[in-house]
């Protein structure tokens, strides 16, 4: 089965999805189109893009027919759109001109890379100094020795494999996982984990 190839676009070209908003600075952070579209500040996107673009999975390639393949910027934007909007992989094709499989693969690899690269620094337990500060702040509010708060939430699982049907079933009958960040006012939060509901 053949399918029409999607014409790749190079950054700076007039049909590029983000010709200006990514590559040029924006005066106000609240009206920045990138921040509205991708839900992260430009500085964060820039950091991620800079780190991801030289990874093997996101480099621009030339395929067997001599066509230029997707630019890393397209893949990173597609991955961020999937995270920001929770949309299906097909949904981004009209926007970044990538096929469904490319978007899905780029999203997966990009997410894995982010966890590998920033997990140890940005998703971690507080170190002793931060812990001390937190406990001091909580002591002012009446709870000396308090490290923070825990909470759970359910995240429904839409496309669970049939083989696992029932393994993650909640009381109300939907498949869901439980994740539990622990929060502190200044540090964001330290841990995140997922377990079956009811566990």
């Amino acid at each position, binding site marked *: 089965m053949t399918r029409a190839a999607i014409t790749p676009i190079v950054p700076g070209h007039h049909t590029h999805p983000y010709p200006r908003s990514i590559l040029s600075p924006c005066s106000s952070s609240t009206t920045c189109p990138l921040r509205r579209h991708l839900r992260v500040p*430009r500085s964060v996107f820039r950091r991620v893009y800079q780190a991801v673009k030289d990874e093997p999975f996101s480099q621009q390639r030339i395929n067997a027919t001599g066509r230029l393949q997707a630019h890393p910027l397209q893949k990173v934007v597609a991955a961020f759109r999937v995270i920001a909007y929770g949309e299906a992989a097909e949904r981004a094709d009209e926007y970044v001109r990538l096929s469904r499989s490319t978007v899905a693969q780029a999203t997966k690899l990009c997410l894995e890379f982010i966890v590998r690269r*920033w997990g140890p620094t940005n998703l971690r337990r507080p170190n*002793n100094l931060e812990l001390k500060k937190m406990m001091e702040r909580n002591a002012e509010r009446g709870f000396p020795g*308090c490290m923070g708060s825990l909470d759970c939430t359910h995240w429904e*699982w839409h496309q669970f494999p049939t083989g696992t049907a029932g393994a993650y079933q909640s009381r109300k009958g939907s498949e869901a996982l439980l994740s539990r*960040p622990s929060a502190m006012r200044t540090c964001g939060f330290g841990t995140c984990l997922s377990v079956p509901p009811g566990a």
Partner: protein
Amino acid sequence: MNQSPLYLDVTAGRWSPRDVPFSINGTTRPLPYYLVDGVYPLYAFLVSPHPMPLTDEAKTFNSLQEAIRKDVERLFGVLTKRFHIALHPGRFRSVKQLIMTYKVVCILHNTCVEARRDTFLSRRRHARGTNGGGSAGGEGEGPAGAAAAAAGGHGAQDGGSDDSGAAAAGGAAPGGGIGNCGGLAAAADAVADPPPAVNAEEQPPAGGMVAVFDAWGQTLNPAEHEQLRADLTAHVWNDRGEMLAPYAV
């Protein structure tokens, strides 16, 4: 819950350093605790509200406990609002990938919080003030300077001067324009540095299995949970005027 890394670490004594004892109502304890709501089990490292508050003491304790715990409740609101992938049902095929996605959401959220926190940028500006930061310009250096400051984040906390080059290059970024090279190259320098090892030394499992069993008995003690809650109730009741003042209507 019994599968969670946090639970396993706490009950095995690997997490929550016990070297900062605190005293509540005359009792000194080494084990810090988390605030939770009523669905959690009665463990010594969790503090839940009174299930049936009848006395004024218990009601005061519950309202103050919930006042602090609302942070985490709001956190989920912010997370799902910012990244809708956490709002809609997960579309992945494996548990591993779901966990990874939620981790990414948390990492990106933490990064955003850090990047937008005023102190990082202002500290960077402050440190740069002496060596001619005026060339960067006040308004124009916003995003790129923030990128450099955030990338240098943890290292910059100690006022280290080693990443001042990255910050200076970041300040020059707005001139780069559409050329895809100016500001991004600056960020590349910052990104190329490996992230600092933050929790380099793990909490040692000193003492082998005996210590694990000790920690197990210490953290999973329901009587201690009740006692801690009673002590905290008395503690906040003593200072109730001052504690409740911010929440008075």
